[in-house]
């Protein structure tokens, strides 16, 4: 009797298994330039912005000035761009960031390229939007270490006042408008014109045959299995995974997302970063432990070095040397042409 009911349950669950439809994954792609199956990888032209902070030229202009202004820090020598530097792919080229008085911080500076497309911010996801995030670095003692009342007073009494009036005519100068302006600027730092994007749009020669093969490896669950987490269109699932980095084996490792979501799976889990413009932001990972893209791929081949709590979506990979090389060549095709960037003149 018990046996029968067990096999009945088994039978039913098998039925529901076969009834399932296939999700939009590797099996559905046709690897031809411009093919409809690839279009999900294109980012929308307009970066989404909240209703109370629609992107306008005045807001972007103000935010750009603030982003590069070292006077937003306590010592008057550090701006957002000190760490998110356009010359280093809007990051800093360091393994982990250097903060107030060159103090070495625990995590790498992520690029701000395409953060406007993401639904969650920071390695541990502790901020939801760019507006929520923006005041953090100025308030932090280990980063810009700024007195906020002093900062607001300065903005009100300097030439900034005019720019604020133009950008936010009905709102007072304060932390809210400051954060909004910074966010508006960040939304203009985008990458969606890479060789890969052009190939998706139909330009046949935008990718080399090796890069197209690398894309196949990237999406194939039996090869690279990368798309599971680095999913369309911004190469992130806005999700959190422990990918088994060696640093998680330390005595008191960085617990990442677990500090905010105390669920076992989240121990040592970090947000999936975009891999667009990836050639400009080495070294890689939240701890800066991978110097090159080859190092990154070598890590994934192991399926995770420290297996304690490693994500169930990670698995050891079997890739030939050619597949490895092609995968790296594909990642290199995700960088948009680097255009000259004009620095702002800062109001005094």
């Amino acid at each position, binding site marked *: 009797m018990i046996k029968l*009911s067990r096999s009945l349950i088994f039978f039913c669950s098998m039925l529901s298994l076969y009834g399932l439809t296939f999700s939009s*994954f590797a099996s559905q792609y046709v690897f031809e330039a411009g093919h409809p199956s690839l279009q999900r990888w294109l980012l929308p032209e307009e970066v989404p912005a909240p209703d109370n902070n629609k992107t306008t030229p005045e807001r972007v202009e103000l935010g750009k000035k603030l982003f590069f202004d070292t006077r937003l820090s306590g010592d008057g020598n550090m701006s957002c761009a000190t760490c998110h530097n356009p010359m280093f792919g809007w990051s800093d080229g360091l393994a982990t960031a250097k903060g107030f008085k060159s103090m070495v911080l625990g995590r790498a500076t992520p690029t701000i390229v395409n953060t406007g497309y993401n639904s969650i911010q920071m390695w541990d*996801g502790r901020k939801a939007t760019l507006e929520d995030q923006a005041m953090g670095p100025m308030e932090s003692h280990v980063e810009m270490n700024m007195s906020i009342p002093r900062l607001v007073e300065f903005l009100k009494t300097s030439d900034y006042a005019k720019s604020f009036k133009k950008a936010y005519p009905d709102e007072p100068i304060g932390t809210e408008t400051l954060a909004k302006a910074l966010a508006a600027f960040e939304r203009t730092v985008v990458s969606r014109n890479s060789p890969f994007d052009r190939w998706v749009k139909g330009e046949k020669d935008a990718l080399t045959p090796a890069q197209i093969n690398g894309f196949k490896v990237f999406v194939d669950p039996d090869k690279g299995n990368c798309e599971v987490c680095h999913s369309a269109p911004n190469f992130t699932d806005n*999700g959190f995974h422990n990918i088994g980095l060696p640093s998680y084996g330390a005595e008191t490792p960085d617990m990442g*997302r677990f500090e905010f*979501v*105390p669920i076992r*799976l989240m121990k040592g889990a970090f947000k999936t970063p975009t891999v667009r413009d990836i050639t400009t932001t080495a070294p890689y990972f939240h701890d800066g432990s991978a110097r090159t893209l080859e190092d990154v791929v070598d890590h994934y081949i192991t399926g995770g070095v420290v297996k304690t709590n490693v994500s169930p979506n990670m698995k050891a990979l079997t890739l030939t040397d050619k597949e490895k090389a092609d995968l790296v060549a594909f990642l290199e095709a995700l960088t948009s042409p680097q255009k000259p960037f004009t620095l702002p003149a800062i109001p005094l």
Partner: protein
Amino acid sequence: MKALFITLLLLIVSATAIAKTVEVAQKDKEFTVAEVEINKGDVVRFVNEDPFFHNVYSLSDTKLFDLGSFPKGEYRDVTFDQAGTVEVECAIHPAMKMKVIVKE
């Protein structure tokens, strides 16, 4: 054998009439419903229909649980034994959220 099969089916059917089981799937990185309303004692069956792992958890006072992670085709059952509203999420993909409303 056939008779046994039928009585068994009937048994299952009548058992579910008392404590209902409602199915909620995880598909394309979303829960298939934003909200379900059930009675105290009913069961919600969370089914993963995506070709990768999801999690299901709630930190609410009404019902605290963490179903770990499970792959495509597998499911986990949760019995809701207290009335109230339970916010359910996937820890891996925080945009995945739904509510279970448990009535007295």
